[in-house]
């Protein structure tokens, strides 16, 4: 990574910043670490590609029960025509799995973008201004943080959609539900960074030259506090897939006719499982696992590679020849969810 040095010229290339760490990480990683990172990147790319090219890849649409006037039939086992079989409602499982990737990616993007924007804004303002606003915001986000995230998402989805929804409404309500859960995380991190940076000389200097608060916040503090964002981004993205699936599984997802969603499909597959039909649950389930796995592997590896504490640790351990490729922040990352 090009190091978090506060140089205005360098940080102007914002769009590159999100990609740069990943490439740098791959080059820096070794052994198992590299294997994990590369596997994660491959799985994540597959997810994104499938999401983008879903119309080309999927044999049918997500809500199609017949083609050329011929009904698919319900609960058909996998065959040449339906490689993953059909569901109890007569949908093609393969198509629903493929289209489900699009729903998942859309929800992740919407949720993460919204929570970053909100969390960063609140964190910057709260950390910089301090005072009672800071206290209240911290207390509220702490309270939300302590709340079981699935329950919070359920409450939000009742609020937003009343439990049932169209494609756009469903995706947005899932995304907003997840956003509410994640805003506190971004808030905490950005707030902590802001408080640290507030005391830095370059912020003082900006103040002295009479820069407006807005410029100090976004031009000086924000640009230097984004170091940890890609990391939380990946951790949240994987968690978002799980929350979305959990919502769908509880029956609060997206209507099957408006979009395809893996968690909902698993919910419908519950009865199938009891009667021994495996294809309706295995395929959407594996899709969830692989998506979460891919994103988590990327996040974990970046976590390991980017932790300054770890780098120090590694260097000092080399002298004593005991290399702990320290998993400890990984453990932290795990407990975060």
């Amino acid at each position, binding site marked *: 990574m090009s190091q978090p040095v506060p140089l205005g010229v360098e940080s102007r290339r914002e769009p590159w910043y999100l990609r740069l760490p990943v490439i740098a990480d791959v080059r820096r990683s070794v052994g198992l670490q590299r294997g994990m990172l590369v596997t994660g990147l491959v799985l994540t790319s597959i997810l994104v590609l499938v999401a983008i090219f879903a119309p080309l890849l999927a044999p049918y649409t997500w809500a199609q029960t017949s083609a050329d006037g011929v009904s698919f039939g319900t609960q058909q086992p996998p065959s040449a025509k339906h490689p993953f079989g059909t569901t109890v409602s007569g949908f093609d499982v393969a198509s629903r799995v493929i289209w489900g990737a699009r729903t998942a990616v859309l929800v992740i993007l919407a949720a993460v973008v919204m929570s970053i924007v909100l969390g960063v804004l609140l964190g910057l303002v709260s950390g910089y201004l301090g005072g009672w606003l800071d206290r209240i915001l911290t207390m509220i986000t702490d309270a939300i943080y302590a709340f079981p995230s699935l329950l919070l998402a359920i409450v939000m989805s009742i609020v937003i959609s009343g439990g049932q929804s169209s494609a756009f409404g469903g995706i947005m309500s899932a995304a907003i539900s997840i956003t509410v859960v994640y805003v506190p995380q971004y808030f905490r991190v950005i707030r902590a960074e802001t408080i640290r940076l507030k005391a830095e000389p370059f912020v003082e200097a900006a103040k002295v030259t009479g820069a407006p608060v807005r410029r100090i916040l976004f031009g000086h503090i924000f640009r230097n506090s984004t170091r940890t964002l890609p990391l*939380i981004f990946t951790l949240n993205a994987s968690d978002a897939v799980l929350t979305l699936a959990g919502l769908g599984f509880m029956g609060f997802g997206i209507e099957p006719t408006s979009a395809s969603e893996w968690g909902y499909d698993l919910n419908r597959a519950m009865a199938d499982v009891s009667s021994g039909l495996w294809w309706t649950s295995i395929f959407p389930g594996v899709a969830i696992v692989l998506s979460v796995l891919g994103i988590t592997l990327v996040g974990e590896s970046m976590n390991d590679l980017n932790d300054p504490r770890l780098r120090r640790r590694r260097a000092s351990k080399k002298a004593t020849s005991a290399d702990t490729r320290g998993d400890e922040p990984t*453990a932290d990352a795990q407990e975060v969810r």
Partner: protein
Amino acid sequence: MSEINSAGGPGSPQNGVLTTGPGVGQLVPPPSTRSRRRGNGLYRYLLVRFLLIFPTIFILVTTVFFLMRITGDPITAALGGRLTPDQLAERRHAAGYDRPIIVQYLNYLGNIARGDFGTTYSDNQAVTKILTSYGSATLELVLYSLVITFLIGIPLGRLAARNRDRWPDAVLRVFAILAYATPVFFLGLLLKLVFSVKLGWLPVSGRISASGEVQMQQILNPTPFYLLDAIRLGSPALIGDVLSHAILPALALGMLNGGVFLRLMRTNLIGTLDRQYIESARSRGVSESRLVTKHATKPALIPVITVMGMQIALMLGGAVLTETTFEWKGLGFMLAQYMTSRDYVAVQGIVMMLAVIVALANFVVDVIAALIDPRVRY
């Protein structure tokens, strides 16, 4: 004894292995961020921490109340299409939903302070009664799953720590990530598919078989736990029945935390194995395996357990999903039921009560953490 003291004590704080640790740990709400003042005594910390429960609960209750009211009142939601507008208005008036929202809110706060979380519409039960009758089932499930978590976490964590950076460690690491990446309900369905449907070894769902339930009703003062009751009846068949129903749900939920536990265990064991008292024990000729099992495990467990305590919120969410998967009639299962019947008073009540439980549990965990580890209190 000495090894416990030297590891649990203030030891070497720069070795951030223990407890929550920094790093991404910033995301974890460390109890300490709330009271930053250093040099305070234990009592002061406990008092502040205790008082903080109230604003937390207050904020949660307020947030949930107003959120649920944005969409309208519960009566319209539950009975919407089924009654005429006049009847609806009448019902709303009778329940007080036509009063100003602030009045309703204050009223609701008052009710909660008296322990009244409302009455469900679909089956006209007090929400608190739902908690007492179904909460125990959830608690039982969570306890079983904790057993699984420990059974997975401790031995595998030891294995990983002893083989640090060799292949067993790598395999276990991937296993832990997989355990995280697999949603509990998918794992539950898989287990069901294999062990109940294909192999037919274990029951598909529920807490107990129908015949077992009949037997259970003979008990005069039933305990909240089926297993205890079965043991009291002294019927091995019944005990087997209860346990066989519990295995798969406990496995599904236990795996969720098992992966986390394993890694925390590994990390903390590696931390404790670096300590000098281990070195000195090794120099006295204590075998490697005994070092891990007898000397390092206990001190390593202390921080792991406090961190696991902070996972309560996660575990409750997991329990909700597990119960739905296995039709385990606990709070989560009921929550799902009430959600489908759009009984939002029940949903709101259960959600709020779970929030209160989480807030209280977090407090207890913080207290335990403070008692065990003096560093938490700063």
